[in-house]
């Protein structure tokens, strides 16, 4: 007899409907899984066999063929365990023939029959909802996540529970955990940073206008500390953004069951040893990289020149288009990647430059090589670049600085203003910008950057028009000459 169960495979972040068919024939006992499946799905055989035995259910005699259709679609991961097990049990008549209708299933099986959560449940649940299926059998830990897609999650702890439910013997009750019962972990606060008025201001402007930010300066001046506090002055995600971010993090297996919906802009800080696929995504079955995980959030590249040049250059596409397209022989995947890039760097390889108390020992060649690592094209993507000098001792002992909450209020107000009206330059401001283009080495792209930052500054000041002082301040954030390749 043939039985069918339904689930979804992911192509990038996109759910594709997959029908799991199981057929039990007479013949020597065997289990074959076909349909372009990867190792994890092949290994499902062993998990399912043990799981079914642990649930004290009969294993069908004869030859079992499981087919995952469409056959040309690549299927990866252990989320197929549960639908395959259910299809086999239905084919063996351990379940009523039509009991699987109107259900989708996703989950990994333990050898003891337990159902384990897998990544990407939100996307699978969205696929089910789109296909008009409103009930999803999934691990209890994934239920809250699945509920975000608007389907009715059926939390299953054990394979036996799923079988009992499908036989009509039991109804699993979904008790919404309610995202947010577990308190948000506190974010590091700006009040902890003393001094650095210039860099703080730059951070605020960057947050208000979603500008990419480059912090340069000698080591130990608090560049990284400041950058890590950017999330604390960003407004929370809107519901649509939150769902998008949650979907991505779910596919990457980063969603916490206690609070699946991600409401805060994500913050990603990959190590500088990261490869180019780790940053932008890749692999044979493409996986999202850090750029995608930082979607609607912040991507911090600490010690920018230490990153592999290939990894940095790969960031240029997402910085321009907001998406990453990964092409592979077997097709391509597109991931969203609209992130705010924050980079930190020293001014020279030995780090002493910009520090009045130290002398740089770098040779001219080494310095040139260091600066050449960052292409002009990449530097051009940073709307705001500032040099953070070493703070004086009396700054460090000064009274506490402003808290993140106060800065965030200004950032939120500025973003609201920018969303409704775009401030226009006054004639004086226009004249100043033209004068700057003549006098300074300012490219067309550089001019556009200054204009953008000036708009943000006007919005932060609560002004409807961009005044000359806004243009002047925006000019002060252009890339310092000593960072440019020579």
């Amino acid at each position, binding site marked *: 007899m043939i039985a069918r169960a339904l689930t979804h495979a992911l192509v990038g972040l996109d759910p594709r409907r997959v029908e799991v068919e199981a057929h039990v024939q007479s013949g020597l006992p065997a289990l074959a899984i076909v349909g372009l499946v990867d190792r994890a799905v092949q290994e499902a055989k062993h998990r399912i066999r043990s799981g079914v035995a642990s649930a004290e259910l009969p294993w069908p005699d004869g030859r079992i063929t499981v087919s995952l259709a469409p056959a040309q679609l690549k299927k990866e991961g252990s989320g197929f365990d549960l639908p395959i097990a259910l299809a086999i049990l239905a084919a063996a008549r351990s379940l009523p023939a039509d009991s699987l209708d109107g259900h989708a299933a996703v989950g990994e099986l333990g050898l003891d029959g337990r159902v384990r959560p897998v990544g990407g449940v939100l996307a699978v649940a969205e696929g089910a909802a789109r296909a008009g299926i409103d009930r999803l059998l999934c691990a209890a830990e994934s239920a809250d996540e699945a509920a975000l897609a608007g389907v009715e999650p059926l939390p299953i702890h054990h394979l036996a529970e799923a079988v009992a439910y499908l036989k009509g013997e039991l109804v699993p009750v979904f008790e919404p955990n309610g995202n947010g019962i577990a308190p948000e972990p506190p974010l590091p606060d700006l009040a902890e940073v003393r*001094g*650095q*008025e*210039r860099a*703080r*201001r730059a951070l605020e402007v960057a947050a208000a206008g979603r500008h990419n930010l480059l912090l*340069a*300066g000698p080591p130990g001046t608090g560049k990284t500390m400041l950058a890590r506090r950017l999330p604390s002055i960003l407004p929370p995600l809107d519901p649509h953004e939150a769902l998008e971010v949650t979907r991505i993090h779910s596919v990457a297996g980063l969603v916490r069951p206690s609070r699946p919906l991600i409401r805060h802009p994500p913050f990603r800080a990959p190590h500088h040893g990261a490869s180019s696929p780790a940053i932008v995504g890749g692999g044979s079955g493409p996986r999202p990289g850090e750029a995608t995980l930082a979607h609607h959030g912040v991507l911090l590249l600490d010690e920018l020149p230490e990153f592999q040049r290939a990894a940095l250059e790969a960031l240029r596409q997402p910085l321009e288009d907001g998406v990453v397209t990964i092409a592979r022989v077997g097709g391509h995947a597109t991931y969203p990647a609209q992130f705010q890039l924050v980079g930190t760097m020293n*001014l020279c390889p030995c780090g002493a*430059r*910009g520090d009045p108390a130290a*002398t*740089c020992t*770098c*040779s*001219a060649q080494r*310095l*040139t090589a260091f600066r050449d690592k960052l292409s002009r094209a990449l530097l051009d993507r940073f709307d705001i670049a*500032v*040099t*953070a*000098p070493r*703070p*004086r001792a009396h*700054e460090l002992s000064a009274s506490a600085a402003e808290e993140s909450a106060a800065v965030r209020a200004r950032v939120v107000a500025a973003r609201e203003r920018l969303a409704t009206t775009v401030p226009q330059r006054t004639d004086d401001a226009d004249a*100043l910008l033209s*004068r*700057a283009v003549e*006098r*300074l080495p300012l490219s067309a792209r550089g001019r556009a950057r200054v204009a953008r930052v000036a708009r943000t*500054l006007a919005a932060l000041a609560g002004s409807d028009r961009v005044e000359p*002082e*806004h243009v*002047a*301040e925006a*000019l*002060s*954030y252009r890339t*310092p*000459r*000593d960072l440019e390749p*020579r």
Partner: protein
Amino acid sequence: MIRAVARPQLPPLLRAIFDPPSRLYIRGDPDLELLAQPAVAVVGARSCSPYGAQVARTLAREVAAAGVVIVSGLARGIDAEAHRGALDAGGVTVAVLGCGVDRDYPAANAELARRIMESGGLIVSEYEPGVEPAPWRFPARNRIIAGLCASTLVVEARERSGALITADFALEAGRDVLAVPGEITSALSAGTNALLRLGAVPVTGAGDVLELFGLLPEQRPKPRLGGVGAVVLEALPGTMDELVQRTGLAAGAAAAALAELELRGLVCEGEGTFRSV
């Protein structure tokens, strides 16, 4: 086009040194009179500080504006800034190479070499076209830099620096040696401060250089400034944070004022520190 000039046609100052070159190769179609004009050598460290770079450029600009030729070695750092300063003033500058004049060395300054040629300056060398740069050719080149000039100005130099070799050649030939004083704690000023201790002329402005030629620096009209600009200018030099502390201005307002001053050419920034020009 490259021209060779034999020893008898060389300027008298250069012929007067201990071992003048047997000939000079010159790129382009030059006016040889140029080499006989009053000239000052501006030399210093390749990996200089932003302060040194700015001082070299400003001094070279003001000295060149008064009509004195700026001679240097087209190296990175102080040398390149000195050439640039002369070009800024629309003045004349001569680059002496340690390789053939058809070579652009260092490659990073190829564009600068082109601008020197366009502005009517010279690129000269005692080596035949095609000769590769080599470490031992640079000290020899330095004797020509010193020999072409009535005085040699060292802007920034470490304790062991090629610029000090140039100064030694200048002393041997009986020329004036000038040095820009620097912080006593900075390794980049160890060489210049040592020169000063030995009796070099301290340079605190273009006037100190021009005095030796009997010239006066061009008087720049004092800029008229609004309130905030004047306050910020008064508080220089310093980092943006220090200016914020000293003036009590908000970080944004201070940044705006500095950008205005920079646009007017009154302030420049290097590694986070702002200085008046």
